[in-house]
């Protein structure tokens, strides 16, 4: 592992901010620290950067323990949430700043800054001041400035929080591509699971100062190992001991089932269900059209269940009795989770 956290614990005024954090980050990968605000995820980032000290534990980068190193000496590029661009320096000077402080020769500085300006498509804005830039442009300047001195690690604190939804989407994929192209090991902090899933190679879910789960985005999304992760990541309906047909349910034991809306198929009475399995009866409570999908609120055996349906299909009416087919559910028993697929033959399903 390129970066390794070993037993990081942090106490502040009797409060346990972090409790025995252990994980590693592969070289050249993008890792997301995902968790609600106050979970301690930013503190992990700041401890790695040297902005704060851990009460216990140790961090190493590229096999070297950095605990005693000054923040400046750790070879880390850090991007603050609000970018913290130097507002009285131009874009060019911002990017060149870290190179000048390290006494690079002038020609080298020029070469590197020009290269980064081209990489981040900021060449035309080189002589602009930060307040003349849009949010996305600022983010790109901050990125260029952080990686300019060839740091070993790039740390970003909520890199997209200050952006509009549209720009956020574009920037995520752009950043992901760029980081992979540059090949720099990166960690970023976010509270938005979509952001983490779309951008990261690996996600570390943190809650109340402890790690809940580590894994690839698909694993985290599909196979949460804790109730917290199941609830925190993505939308899902939570049902109490439902009688699910086609699943191996615990016997004489209460359990919880988490069902994502895209795993629930809804059919009108007159529609031909493309399956031979047993269909459940449910009632439509409400429908909301949100562009790509129609999200359907259902009542099934007295419990609330959400489903998605294609807007191309015939609209549903309130109170209408419909048939549903549940493809996949996450069953929690005694703190253990198990992802189950419906054992009945499923239909080719396109939404």
């Amino acid at each position, binding site marked *: 592992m390129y970066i390794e956290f070993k037993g990081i614990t942090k106490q*502040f005024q009797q409060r346990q*901010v972090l409790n025995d954090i252990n994980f590693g980050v592969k070289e050249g990968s993008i890792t997301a620290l995902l968790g609600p605000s106050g979970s301690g995820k*930013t*503190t992990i980032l*700041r401890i790695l950067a*040297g*902005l*704060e*000290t851990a009460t216990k534990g140790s961090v190493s980068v590229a096999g070297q323990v950095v605990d005693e190193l000054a*923040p400046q000496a750790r070879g880390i590029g850090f991007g603050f949430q609000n970018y913290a661009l130097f507002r009285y320096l131009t874009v060019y000077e911002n990017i060149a700043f870290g190179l000048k402080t390290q006494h690079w020769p002038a020609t080298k500085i020029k070469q590197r800054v020009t290269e980064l300006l081209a990489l981040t498509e900021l060449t035309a804005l080189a002589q602009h001041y930060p307040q003349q830039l849009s949010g996305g442009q600022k983010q790109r300047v901050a990125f260029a400035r952080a990686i300019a001195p060839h740091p070993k690690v790039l740390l970003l604190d909520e890199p997209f929080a200050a952006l509009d939804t549209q720009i956020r989407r574009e920037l995520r994929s752009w950043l992901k591509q760029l980081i992979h192209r540059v090949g720099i090991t990166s960690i970023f902090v976010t509270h938005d699971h979509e952001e983490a899933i779309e951008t990261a190679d690996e996600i570390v879910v943190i809650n109340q100062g402890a790690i809940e789960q580590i894994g690839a985005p698909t694993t985290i999304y599909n196979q949460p190992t804790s109730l917290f992760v199941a609830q925190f990541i993505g939308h899902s309906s939570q049902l109490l001991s439902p009688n699910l047909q086609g699943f191996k349910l615990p016997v004489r034991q209460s359990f919880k089932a988490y069902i994502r809306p895209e795993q629930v198929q809804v059919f009108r009475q007159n529609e031909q269900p493309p399956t031979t399995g047993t269909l459940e009866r449910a009632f439509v409570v409400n429908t909301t059209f949100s562009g790509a999908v129609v999200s359907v609120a259902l009542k099934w055996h007295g419990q609330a269940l959400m489903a998605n349906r294609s807007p191309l299909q015939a609209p549903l009416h309130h109170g209408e009795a419909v048939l549903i087919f549940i493809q996949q559910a996450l069953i929690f028993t005694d703190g253990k989770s198990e992802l189950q697929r419906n054992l009945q033959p499923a239909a080719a399903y396109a939404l």
Partner: protein
Amino acid sequence: MQQTSKRLIPGYYFSLVITLLGVSLIVLLPFAALVISGWQVGAQQFWQEATNSRVLASYLVSIKGALVAAIINTGFGLLLAWVLTQYEFPGKWLLDSLLDLPFALPTAVAGIALAYLFSDQGWLGRLVVPLGWKISYTFNGIVIAMIFVTLPFVVREIQPVLEQLDFSVQEAAYTLGGGTSTILRRLVLPEILPALVSGFGLVFARCLGEYGSIVFIAGNQPYHTEITPLLIMFKLEAHDYSGATVLALVMLLFSFTFSFIIHSWQRWLLQRKG
């Protein structure tokens, strides 16, 4: 988590040393000298010095003058701030600039000019003599000097608040049938009250300590027109250092208590406003 962060930005010890050195040499050391020499006076003598009849009279003159000046300046400060923020008129820039003069004008200059202006033969003093009024060398003179030196305080406190006042609320209230006085009382006053209070406090505190301008225009007559700072000066000139120290400590104590009360009141008002 800001509290536990390491001192990443360089210059901590540098700025710490300069700041502590400055504060210690210029503020702490002299004040320690004041407190210690006050301590050496002894409780009994302290009480006597602090409460003899002439001293008590000077407290009264100072507080009365400061109170009157603060009330007048709060009223006119409100008027000036209103005029400056709500109306457009020629010479507005001049009026706004003139208001800064007392901040910067040396108190001695203000003092002699006012004493001259309001004396019985002065441009203005002459006008009020037939009415049987005297301004210079009476209590009125003290108030005039206090008004002059603290003129900008209230205006500068209220001005920004009035500028940001949301008049759509008032217009809504007006369309709903609230009269002008109701709107002023129920909607405008609560908004500007915290600023008004802090302005009043600033004026009052500054008036209590003012010396330079008042000494020229007050008659400096014990029991009638002698303010506490002047009495401190007298005691200093008479080489009565312990007496001067006692008065200084009493004044300091009073102004700290006063500013504490004003601060708490203002905080309470702001909290209530939300």
